[in-house]
C-alpha cells in the first residue's frame, strides 16, 4: 500500500513560501511512499535543496525519514536537528498530507509558530503496477464490500461510486467518464462474479451507503 503523491507546480510552492515570508528552511522528505512516487526521498530532497538555494533560500537541515507520518519517528528525527529547526522559518515537507500533519502535531508544543508547508498533492491510496503506474482501487471507506463484489470495489472503480450499477453511462463495458476509455467498475464486478460462479451476488439490491459515521474526524483506537 502506498499513499500516492504528485508534485505541485514549483510556482505554487514558491508562492506559499513567499506568502509566509520564509527565508530559512528545514526540509523533511519521505523515504517511503513519496520516494516510490518520486516526489520525495533522498533525490527529491536534493532536487528541492538545489532549487531553493538557487533562489536564495537557506537550507538549515535536510531530514530524509522512513516514516514522516509516524509521530514517534518524526519526534526522534526532528529532535536530532532541533537547533536547525529552531533557526528555520518553516518546515518544507516532501511527503503526503499525513506527513505534513504529523510534523504539525509533533512540533505543536515546542514550535507552535512555525509553518509546515508541503511540495506535493496527495492523490489516493494506490495499488502499484510498477513505478510510475499507480491505481486507486480502494477508497478506505470503512465498510468493505469486496466479499460480495468479486473482489472489485464499486466505490473506487465506479466513477459514481454506485451501489447498484452499471448505470446508463456504460457503453460496451466502458465508462462515460473519461470518454469511454476506462472500464466500467460494475462490468468488472459482473465479469468477476460470473467467473467465480456467483452472479447471485450481482442480483442483490444493495442499500445506499450509511454515512452516519462520517461526520467526525475518523480514528481507530484499540488500546
Amino acid at each position, binding site marked *: 500500500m502506498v499513499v500516492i503523491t504528485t508534485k505541485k507546480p514549483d510556482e505554487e510552492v514558491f508562492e506559499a513560501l513567499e506568502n509566509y515570508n520564509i527565508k530559512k528552511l528545514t526540509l523533511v522528505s519521505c523515504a517511503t511512499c513519496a520516494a516510490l512516487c518520486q516526489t520525495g526521498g533522498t533525490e527529491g530532497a536534493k532536487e528541492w535543496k538545489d532549487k531553493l538555494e538557487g533562489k536564495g533560500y537557506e537550507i538549515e537541515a535536510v531530514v530524509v525519514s522512513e516514516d514522516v507520518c509516524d509521530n514517534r519517528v518524526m519526534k526522534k528525527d526532528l529532535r536530532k536537528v532541533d537547533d536547525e529547526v529552531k533557526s528555520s522559518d518553516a518546515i518544507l515537507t516532501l511527503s503526503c498530507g499525513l506527513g505534513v500533519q504529523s510534523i504539525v502535531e509533533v512540533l505543536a508544543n515546542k514550535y507552535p509558530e512555525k509553518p509546515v508547508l508541503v511540495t506535493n498533492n496527495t492523490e489516493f491510496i494506490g495499488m502499484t503496477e510498477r513505478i510510475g503506474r499507480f491505481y486507486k482501487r480502494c477508497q478506505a471507506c470503512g465498510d468493505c464490500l469486496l466479499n460480495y463484489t468479486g473482489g472489485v470495489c464499486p466505490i473506487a472503480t465506479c*466513477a*459514481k*461510486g*454506485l*451501489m*447498484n*450499477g*452499471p*448505470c*446508463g*453511462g*456504460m*457503453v*460496451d*463495458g466502458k465508462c*462515460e*467518464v*473519461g470518454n*469511454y476509455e476506462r472500464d466500467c467498475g*460494475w*462490468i468488472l464486478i*459482473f465479469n468477476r462474479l460470473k467467473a467465480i460462479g456467483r*452472479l447471485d451476488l*450481482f*442480483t*442483490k*439490491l*444493495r*442499500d*445506499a*451507503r450509511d*454515512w452516519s459515521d462520517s461526520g467526525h474526524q475518523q480514528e481507530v483506537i484499540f488500546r
Partner: protein
Amino acid sequence: MESNHAYSKLGEALAKGDFILTGELEPEKTCDLSHLVHEAKEMAPYVIAANVTDSPLGIVTINSLAASYIVQRDAGLEAIWQMTVRDVNKLGIAGMLMGAQALGIHNILSLTGDHPNMGDMPESKPVFDLDSATLVKLVREMVDTGKINGHEIEAPPKIHVGAAANPNAEPMEAEVLKIGRKAEAGAEFIQTQVVYDLDRTIEFLTAIRKYNVPVLLGIFPMKSYGIAKGFDTFVPGVSVPKDILAKWKGIKTDLKTDKKLQKEAYDQANYEFFKPFITELRKKKLLDGIHCMAVHYPRIFPKLEEVIKSTN
C-alpha cells in the same frame, strides 16, 4: 406493482393496463419556460404525461421539479419529473419528494444522471448518495409506509416511480439483472433508452418480462436528417441504422425546395419505420406503451397515435 392506488393519470393507466404514450420535454438554460409550455400544449392531446428532464449530459438547465410544476400548471399536461441522484443527497431528495407532492407532481422517473464531469459545470461535486435503484426504494418507502427511516411523515407523498432500462447495453445480461434490482426496489414502470434494433429489443424485453414491470419503449422519431445524423454521432451506445440515415438524407436532398413536402416526408418515413417495429413488439406482448423522446417534434404525435391505434 404492489400498490393498488393511482395517484396520477399515468398511475391509473398503468393500473388499468391501458397502452400508454408519453412524451419528453427538455427544459433549457433559461428561467422562461414559455417555449416548453408551448411544446407541452402541442403534445398534450396525444400523450398521457411527459417526462421533464433533469440537466441531461450534466449540462445545467432549470430545475426539473420547477419545470414539471410549470408544465402541469400552464400546459395542463401531467409531468413525469425526472430526478437524477447526481446533484442531491438522500436528505435533500426526501425533502424534494415531499415538495413534489405539495406541488401536485405525482410521477417520478428515477435516474442516475450523467456525471457532472461530462457537462458544463465539471467542477461540481458529484453526489450519487443514492443510485437509481435506491431512489426507487426511497420513494416506495415514503409513499407506501408514510414513513422515512421509521419517522412518520404527517402528510406523505403520493407518487408513482419509474426506472430506466437500456436494451442497447452490452453485456446485456448485466443490464437485465440490474432491471431485476430496480423491480425489487419497487419500480412501477420502465422507460427504455431509445432503440432502433428490433431483434435486440425483442431479446431484451423478453428477458425483463419476468420482472413483471410495465415497459414503455423509448423511441426517437427523427425530425430531420441533421437530427438523425447528430443522434447517431453523439449519443453513445445508440446507432441509427444506415438505411434509415440514407432514407432521411434522400428526403433532405430531394425535397430541399419544398419544406412543407419535406416535413410530410420525414413524418411519413417515421411512421413507416416505427409502425412495423411497434406492431411486432405488441404482437409479442412485450410492450405496455411508448415513450417518445423526440423533443421539439410535437407534430409527430398524431402519427404515433395512428400507429398505436392501428396496432391495438
